[in-house]
């Protein structure tokens, strides 16, 4: 089974972290300590989806921590994927509010870098790297979730561009984003299931775009429905080749799944529990508590090593789509298990409105938990991807 092997056959779990990455990690930690001290943000579970802060994103941009791996001529910093990984995981572990730029930096920018015209690269990449230009994901539709290729949004050719009708759903933060890379049909559905689709860069402020909120189980608004009613999309906003949408979206999904955010969403719960036990009047923990904490820590450590290995594979020019799928399956289930385990250990009443951080984070973990194994590809679909690599499909 050739999973998690570097091109030279060596182990991606035994690559030493270069000295410059350690220095970078310290810089990020100092910045986060200063931000926390200045009360810039309130930690919460799932902050990478829930925490939207243009100020924070711009501050990261100023420090050169967005677009890290992109060419300098497009506003990037030409640093290895590993450096982006280090910055990302420190931000995630601190529950920093990165939602504004997260998608743009993680996948939209790389998609434009790979498939975009020179004009598109110049128009979007530097602004994303400054933390000023935000992108959403236009893939799912009300009738097309796991079966993404069944989408119905249709763009018809008109002079100088396309006329788009249809709708996209989920589209987190579309109501505050600027653009959305959107998968649409540009040819009628034919015999080939994956043919006839294209990606368009939609200006979310364009005429004919209506954004309606979808409120989540926890009362929060980040999901939306985005409706296209005769939206004109100029030819210059086609991303890549007309008809190549499926191949491009698969590439974008690989970027989406390859980061460290799929194991840290509920870390605040664990940290709050430990904090409680280090307080002066804390109860002495029993054997069961010690065992469960030890197991949670061992699982977290292992998951992080897996995620780091994905970054090493990326740096070697690999496309670790199967490895990413596997880590996302393990990591998201861990995120849910962590919440359930701490809930069992801590005699509290979880509530979103509690002044006590542990109660608040547990409530966030419980309410947001079902989404962890659904978003970015359900775990069942991801396991199908792994099964294919095992030769079973």
């Amino acid at each position, binding site marked *: 089974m050739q999973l998690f092997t570097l091109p030279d056959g060596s*182990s991606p779990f035994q690559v030493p972290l270069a000295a410059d990455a350690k220095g970078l990690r310290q810089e990020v930690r100092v910045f986060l300590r200063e931000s926390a001290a200045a009360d810039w943000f309130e930690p919460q579970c799932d902050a990478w989806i829930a925490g939207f802060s243009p100020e924070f994103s711009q501050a990261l941009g100023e420090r050169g921590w967005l677009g890290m791996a992109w060419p300098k001529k497009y506003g990037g910093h030409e640093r290895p994927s590993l450096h982006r990984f280090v910055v990302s995981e420190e931000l995630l572990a601190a529950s920093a509010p990165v939602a504004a730029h997260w998608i743009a930096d993680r996948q939209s920018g790389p998609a434009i870098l790979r498939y975009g015209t020179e004009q598109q690269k110049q128009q979007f990449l530097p602004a994303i790297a400054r933390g000023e230009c935000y992108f959403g994901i236009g893939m799912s539709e009300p009738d097309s979730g796991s079966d993404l290729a069944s989408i119905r949004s249709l763009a018809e050719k008109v002079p100088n561009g396309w006329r788009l009708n249809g709708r996209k759903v989920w589209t987190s933060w579309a109501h505050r984003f600027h653009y959305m890379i959107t998968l649409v049909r540009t040819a009628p559905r034919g015999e080939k299931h994956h043919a006839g689709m294209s990606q368009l860069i939609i200006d979310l402020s364009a005429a004919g775009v209506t954004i309606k909120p979808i409120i989540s189980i926890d009362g929060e608004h980040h999901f939306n429905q985005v409706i296209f009613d005769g939206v004109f999309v100029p030819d210059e906003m086609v991303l890549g080749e007309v008809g190549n949408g499926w191949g491009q979206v698969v590439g974008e999904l690989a970027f989406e799944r390859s980061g460290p955010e799929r194991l840290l969403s509920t870390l605040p719960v664990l940290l709050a529990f430990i904090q409680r036990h*280090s307080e002066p009047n804390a109860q002495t923990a029993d054997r069961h*508590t010690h065992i469960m904490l*030890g*197991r949670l820590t061992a*699982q977290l450590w*292992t998951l992080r090593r897996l995620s780091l290995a994905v970054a090493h594979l990326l740096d070697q020019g690999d496309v670790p789509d199967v490895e990413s799928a*596997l880590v996302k*399956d393990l990591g998201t289930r861990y995120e849910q298990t962590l919440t359930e385990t701490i809930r069992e250990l801590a005699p509290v009443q979880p509530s979103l409105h509690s002044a006590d951080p542990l109660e608040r984070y547990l409530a966030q973990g419980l309410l947001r938990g079902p989404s962890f194994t659904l978003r970015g590809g359900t775990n069942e679909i991801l396991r*199908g991807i792994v099964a294919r690599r095992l030769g079973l499909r």
Partner: protein
Amino acid sequence: MNELTLIAETAGRLFGETCTTAVLEAAEQGEWTEIVWDALEQTGLHLISVPEAVGGVGGSLNEAVTVLRIAAQHAAPLPLAEIYLAGWLLGEAGIGLPNGRFTLAIPRPTNDVAFAETAVGWQLAGELTRIAFARHVGFAIVVVAGRVGLVDLADATLIPSQNLAEEPRDTAVFAQTKLLAVSESLAPEVISHLPVRGALLRTAQMVGALEAILACSIRYVGEREQFGRPIAKFQAIQQYMAQLAGEVVAAKAALETAVMLVEQEGQGAKTAVAMAKIRVGEAVSTATRIAHQIHGAMGFTQEYPLHYFTKRLWAWRDEFGAEGEWAEWLGKEVLKMKAQNLWPFVVG
């Protein structure tokens, strides 16, 4: 071709050729399978990571772990982990390897055993239990109260016993038994590293056996047909197989990271080994359950070779510290930290 690849290929060939199901069955019946030992001895791979100064061939821990993992992929009926561990101890103690097959005996908490310096030299008295393959080897390296000693097992009374996988785990009773060699008191950090290194080597064996049950399962679901097609085509099976692969990959990640950290930090890598032993132990629980479920009734038989691996996994999971023991220790360490130090601890 690099050194590690060469070692891996040699080990794969030697164990692949000798560890047939007939050999594994004979081993379960209590026979000593000389054919496997002979093949190993000819390659010298049992002496990897043992310092040349005491008769080993040198080489890294990573190389020894590679051989051990491959041996476990073939369920090799040998005390190879004990040989590597004893070899390491002999290196620390400055005692030469004995002239013949040997194993390692570490006192269990309930064992009543002691070294004594007498007028006629150092002697060993008492009882040591769960000694791997004691009945099949000539010598035991024994660790008692911080000293390493070498004893001829012909001078002991052996009472056979087995672990869950029917691997020999014998009791040896000593009565004023002469020690062939005995060391000075070893440094405390060496003694405290012994259970850590042992846990790491057992973890390597578990990873090898996990890899074997994954390969076995992939083969089986491709061949076994029901309802007119290989069962691999059913989504339920595909979901299980992906979970199984996930556990094996997680186990690999934990082991390989821990090996790197022990090589870098030596005694300082106790937490990494603890976390690896815990995570791989957990992987065993999930992976063996899935492997047996996928194999149906066939996997439940003596005849089909799955059990050689799943029994070893269940047995090894509880040796050198079960997950609960290591997790309890780790959990206490975690609670000594302030919350803001957990993440830096995980990153290392």
